[in-house]
Structures are given as C-alpha cells and as structure tokens.
C-alpha cells in the first residue's frame, strides 16, 4: 500500500513512468470499484431494504458486493437507517476502524438530513455528513433496492475516476 501510494511520485522520475502509473491507476481503480465489500451496518427501516437487496430477487452479489461483519475488511459503509445522537460516535468509530480506501453511502432520508425526524426530535442526528464524509446519497424513505443498486453503480463510476494521489486525502 505504501509503495503504491508513492508510485506516482517515483514514476515521474522515470521516462514514460507516468504512462505506466496512469495505466496502473486505471486497473487498480477498476478492481476497487468491482469489489466493494460492504459493512453490515443497519439501524432502522433501511436495513430491511438493505437485506432485501442482498437477497434473491435483487442480489447484491451480482455487483461483486458481499457483506463483511468486521469493519476492517469492508470498503463501503452503507449507513442504512436513522443515526441518533447516541449512535453517532459509534458510526464515527466504525468509520475510523475501516481500512483505506473507504467509502460511505448514505441510504435514506434519515441519514441525509434527518428525514421524518428532522422536526421535533431531540435525539436524531440531522444528517450523517457532519459525522463522516459521504460519497453517495440515496434518497428515499426507505429507498427501493433498485435505487440502492443505482447508487452503488454511481459509486463505482466515481471510484473509477479517482486519482492515486488523492487516496491519502479520501
């Protein structure tokens, strides 16, 4: 990992090295995009739709996405369901435990802006984007499995465009 991060830097010094780096970048990003293992993180209603998406009719595995129970082995955290103020530190912690490169998909209205619990609720975090950085927002209450998969495809497109140099910041 360390070497690969520095690769763009070293490749500048060799003639033609940047071409190699670009090609390598494309391959690595492709691999990353095609193999998004998601963390089993469901809190509320969206978790049921997340399970449905993993089940027979929609089948997340078609996209190469399988769930991992341990955050260390996951690439993507699908925040499915309301994040309360009590849960927020835990979400932050799970995100911190994940290995780079890591991505976040905010599923459902609650994770985007508090959803139906925006008004009058004393305990709901109004959007997870002030806890962890979010890559893709999938609106809905709860989103249909199709839209969740659409969100994942958009995330794959996004990953394919990323630069190796930016991995540190991501």
């Amino acid at each position, binding site marked *: 990992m360390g070497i690969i991060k520095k690769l763009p830097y070293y490749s500048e010094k060799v003639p033609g090295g940047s071409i190699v780096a670009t090609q390598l970048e494309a391959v690595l990003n492709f691999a990353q995009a095609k193999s998004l293992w998601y963390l*089993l*993180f*469901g*809190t*509320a*209603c969206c*978790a*049921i*739709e997340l*399970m*449905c998406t993993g*089940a*027979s*009719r929609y089948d997340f595995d078609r996209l190469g996405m399988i769930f991992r*129970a341990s955050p260390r082995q996951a690439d993507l955290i699908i925040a499915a*369901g*309301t994040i*309360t103020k*009590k*849960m927020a530190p*835990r979400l932050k912690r*799970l995100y911190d435990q994940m290995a780079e490169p890591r991505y976040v998909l905010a599923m459902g209205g609650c994770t985007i802006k508090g959803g*139906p*619990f925006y*008004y*009058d*609720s*004393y*305990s*709901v975090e109004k959007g997870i984007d002030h806890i962890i950085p979010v890559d893709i927002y999938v609106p809905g*209450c*709860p989103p*249909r499995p199709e839209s969740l998969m659409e969100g994942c495809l958009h995330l794959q497109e996004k990953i394919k465009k990323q630069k190796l140099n930016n991995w540190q910041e991501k």
Partner: protein
Amino acid sequence: MGKLRTEEFIVNMGPHHPSTHGVCRLMLTMDGERVVNVEPYIGYLHRAIEKICENRTYPQCIPLMDRFEYVTAMSCDYAFSLAVEKLAQIEVPERAEYLRVIMLELNRIASHLLFYATTAMDIGAVTPFLYGFRERELIIDLFEMTCGQRLTYNYIRIGGVSRDILPEFVPKCREALNIIKGKLSDYQGLLNENPIWKARTKGIGVMSQELAVAYGVSGPNLRATGIKFDLRKDDPYSIYDHFDFDIPIGQNGDVFDRYLLRLREIEQAIKIIEQALDGIPEGEYKTKIPFRFKPPAGEVYSRIENSRGEMGLYILSDGSTKPVRVKARGSSYNHLQVLPEVAKDCLIADLVATFASFDIIMPEVDR
C-alpha cells in the same frame, strides 16, 4: 484436581453486531464461553417518535407509526387508527375492515417470514435467510400494488384505508398464498428434522409461564410457553370474530417452540386471508373524516395483536387537533427486558439463538 480458577471478562456485543438485528447493545459478563450475565443497553435508535407525535395532527402521526415498527408497519397504522377510532367513536365501513384484515394478516406472514430468515441466519444456516426473503417479496409486491410502498405503507388511515384495492389484487393474492403454502413444507423440511437444528434449539432459552406473564411477554413468545392467549380471540377487535382460525400454542417455551409456532401461525394467517378474500363486501372503503379532525377530549389505551405480540397505543386527547400524549407500547420492549432472565448462564451461541427467537426489533424498543 482442584477447581480450575477462571476469570470473568466483559464482552461488549453491539450496538453494531451482526446478530443484534439493528442496534441493541448487550454487555455480556462471560466466563470462557459461558455467559454469566447479560445486560441490555438500548436507546441507539431512540428517535423520539412520541415527542414528534405531540406536535402532529392525528392523520400526520400515521407515517411515524410506520417507522415505529417497520417490519409490520400495517399493524402499527392499524393500532393508531383503531385507537383514534375508539377515541372519536368512528364507524368503519365493512369493506374497509376486510381490507384491513387482509393487509394485517399478509403483513403478519411477511414478518414471520423475516423471522424465519433471520433466526436461521443467526443459528448459522444462511440459505433459509434467502428463502424467507424470496417469499416475502411476493407479499411486498401485493402491498406495493395497493399502496405504492414496499416497507412504510401509510395505508390504514383513520376511518378506513387510503385507497381501494385493484381488481387484480384478489387473484394475485391467492396466487401468492398458494406459493407460500407450498413453500411452507420446504421451510419445515429444511430445518424441522435437521438434527443440528434440533440440537441447537430444543431446550434452549426456556421461559416459564410465570416469568412470561410477570414480564409482560406477549404474542408468539407467550403462546410458546403454553398459554393460549391471543388478542384476536380474547379481546376481539375489527372483524376477527367472523373468521374461523386456530391459535397454535407450544409446550416448552424454548427456541424450537417459538420457531415452529410462528410457522404454524403463517398457516393460520393464510386461512384467515382466504376467508376474507372470499367475503369482501362491496361498499365504501373509508369514512370521511374532517380535514381538521378533532377527536373529543379523553384517553384510550387500545391494543392489537401484531406479529410480535401486544401492540398497544395510549392516546391522551384534549379535544384539539393534536394529541397531548401518545405512548406506544411495543412488545419487543418487554421481550428484551426478559432476556437477561432467560439467557442466564448459557453459552454465547445459545444467547444468540434466544435473542433471535424472541424476534426483537429494535425501533419498537427504542421508539
């Protein structure tokens, strides 16, 4: 040889753990593999639904009730509507009652299928998980056809239902029921006689009748201990007295009984729906309620039997458009409370099995 000196240690299970179905946190005091003490910590999904309801008009509360217990959202809609109807003494047309019963029982099947899926998953069998979801999709399709949503329906409203069923609903429903009926034997064949499944579930997590009643355990978990108590028969609401169905009960109150009971309840639910489909009368599907709906001052606690047990709603009204207090009683609240008593001194695998068999769903606990 003297007794081996061992040291207890504390394991924090959750709030994010594959087997806690959401965000329950269990603090386990463990002696090796043996769980000495369990202490549930809840509130990771406390969304203050009751507080929000106090600042919403009565019809506006129903979408929140969907999110109170999303696995059987229909029954929550219904519990709230029933409470308000009792409060304001609204008569509901008979067609609406039939539609409600069909939807409630379909939702019960969906919920029990989810139970089948997740319990099998927690005991280590992955494939039943997928099978349960496969048949659940058939029911979800019916709901989607009727009210356009897959999970949070907002279908049962005060005074009736939000819209009438489509003409093709009845044949589609019958078709889905026939498929599920056929698959039920598959489910049982996959697990019932499996020696590993029996070893993992028989005699595990036994709950006595006294304990169950004292802790307010209700629904299938209560019936698995052998008490024949079902609000559909014992405190009849809606039109359940028109139908002929049985209340299955268990004997030992262990994990296996709770599992089998739910599968048998699916059969009974299918029976009710078939009778209801035969007898849907023509007529209105809802009573008009005024736009600024104001029930009279007063209070009511109404309870219904949803797939997990007694779903109760206490509503205190002062005669304005908004309720003064809404207190939702979810049965999982009591089931989680009794868990430390049932799961005392068992292995960690048994704890997971017991937890799964209670069919606890966290939003009902945290609200």
